[in-house]
């Protein structure tokens, strides 16, 4: 990417920070995410979640989804934080914050599709991490959730151009990243990592944003990049992509990301990948129902949104 292009992109991303819908809890939440889990005060998390009532209501609905495997629904935020754990509630809160951040603004494409892909990838990455005994399954979730932050950036910063990119990619059944390079000269990896850097996301997560389509050039010692790459491909081929089929075949075991991840989680090579793929059948409808239930409901949200 040329330096001119990069400067222009940076200015666009800077501009995004002034969005009227940017929720007040986003900054303090991002600060919390930088802390080690054992340094985080439970009360602080409960306070953040409760701060914005739309966000609080969405968080509770997500927390009660079967995706989180809870046996009994919870009605209080404190109970959700206690039973799901601080990290998971932070992830949920971040999802709702990002949703609010990006709503009420002109989007390229269908925002629900973006959320389905993001939440789907998060769930698949966590599931994969657990199956292969990856050291940090919760981090896998966060990285999966944020890996396409750049799609959100592109959708908001370039609504018109990006609508065309999405339409072209869909018409030809090609991966989004190829169409972006062709039409924009940069990809969501670049735009996403610029926003990630200004938000000071943890480096491991920002690496995922920047390199999940380019695992071979990722910084060393970060298996999260390979893991999210695999989770992303699985989601896109399981119907949780960008609202269209990418007509291609993928042999995951021959993908460089596979070897890379196996270095850190040797169980990957013994995993029954076919069975894992069948199991995703159960995740897909859960994610779809969750996103439609939480993010497409209009009435209770409208009272909070008032972009001037």
């Amino acid at each position, binding site marked *: 990417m040329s330096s001119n292009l990069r400067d222009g992109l940076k200015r666009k991303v800077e501009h995004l920070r002034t969005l009227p819908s940017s929720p007040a809890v986003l900054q303090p939440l991002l600060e919390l995410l930088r802390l080690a889990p054992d340094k985080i005060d439970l009360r602080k998390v409960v306070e953040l979640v409760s701060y914005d009532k739309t966000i609080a209501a969405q968080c509770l609905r997500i927390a009660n989804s079967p995706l989180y495997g809870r046996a009994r629904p919870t009605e209080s935020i404190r109970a959700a934080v206690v039973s799901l754990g601080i990290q998971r509630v932070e992830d949920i809160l971040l999802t709702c914050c990002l949703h609010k951040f990006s709503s009420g603004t002109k989007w390229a494409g269908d925002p629900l599709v973006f959320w389905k892909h993001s939440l789907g990838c998060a769930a698949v990455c966590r599931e994969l991490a657990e199956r292969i005994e990856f050291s940090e399954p919760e981090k896998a979730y966060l990285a999966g959730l944020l890996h396409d932050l750049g799609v959100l950036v592109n959708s908001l910063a370039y609504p018109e151009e990006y609508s065309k990119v999405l339409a072209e990619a869909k018409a030809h059944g090609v991966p989004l990243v190829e169409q972006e390079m062709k039409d924009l000269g940069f990809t969501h990896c670049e735009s996403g990592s610029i926003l990630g850097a200004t938000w000071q996301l943890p480096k491991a997560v920002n690496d995922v944003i920047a390199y999940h389509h380019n695992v071979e050039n990722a910084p060393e010692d970060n298996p999260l990049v390979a893991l999210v790459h695999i989770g992303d491909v699985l989601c896109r081929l399981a119907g949780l992509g960008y609202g269209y089929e990418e*007509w291609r075949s993928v042999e995951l075991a021959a993908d460089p*990301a596979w070897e890379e991840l196996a270095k850190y989680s040797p169980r990957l090579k013994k995993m029954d990948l076919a069975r894992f793929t069948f199991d995703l059948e159960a995740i897909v409808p859960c994610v779809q129902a969750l996103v439609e239930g939480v993010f497409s409901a209009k009435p209770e949200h409208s009272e909070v949104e008032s972009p001037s």
Partner: protein
Amino acid sequence: MAGEVIPTVLTTPSEKEDARDPVYLRIRDLVYQTSGIYHSEEKLYLLVSACKRRMASERVAAKSGRKYLELLTSPGYKETESRELLNEITIGETCLFRSQPQLNALQNVILPELVAERGKIGFRRLKVWSAGCSTGEEPYTLAMFLLEQKGKLLKDWEFSIQATDLNDRSVEAARAGIYGDYAVRNTPEIYKRNYFSPGENGKLVVKDEVKAKITFTRLNLNDDSRMVFMKGMDLIFCCNVLIYFDMASKRRVVQHFYSNLMPNGWFFLGNAESLYQVNDQFRLVHLPGTTAYRKGGTEPGKGGMA
């Protein structure tokens, strides 16, 4: 994800409930180990209703899932009852155009690639094998689908389909090619119009131009002396057949399939069937909404970029 499995008996809410009973997870795992057919959480209710139908049968008369699992694992019963259960699981799966994701992948990914590759060497022939073709639904689907491509992707191409089954009566019925409403419930109208003629009692009869593309023969997949002659295949389909084989025969049969495929050839199983621990030469390939297995080629297979 993959094509739908349509239950022949409507499931009741209680079967959704029962799907949470851990005993059915154990039956699910047992079925997967012995047959290679897998029920994800999403499809577990189908397994539960298959079990319930068996449990209600006179021969079994089991009152609970736990009792039924005991029967499925007890010496003297397990072989026959496992087979009955598999019959119950796969019943209703035999219809034309059963797996749309498989056909979509053929049309949009596999055929274009094959055509491009072969085009280079000017060899325009496609050989397909439907192994365990039952009463003909699968080979006819493939023949109609490929005929439909003759005007497009497969212009100037020839193709032939070998359809084999162990059962003489199935092969006879397949040759006749007469289907009722239930068998054609997933068949798109355009195919019904172009490739069938009306038969007796409202049934549909496959037209001769479709039949001409297929050779039906009786073949035992365990017959090594005949398996070695099924050479030069580009695509092999073997859906819900291997599930009845024990591990040793499964391995032997799949090895034959592997040898009989051309380099870079494709092998397709039924929905939710897997080759895990059966064969490690075939490579698992992900396609939109489905998976398939692929033989290695003379050049390295495509990895998953992007």
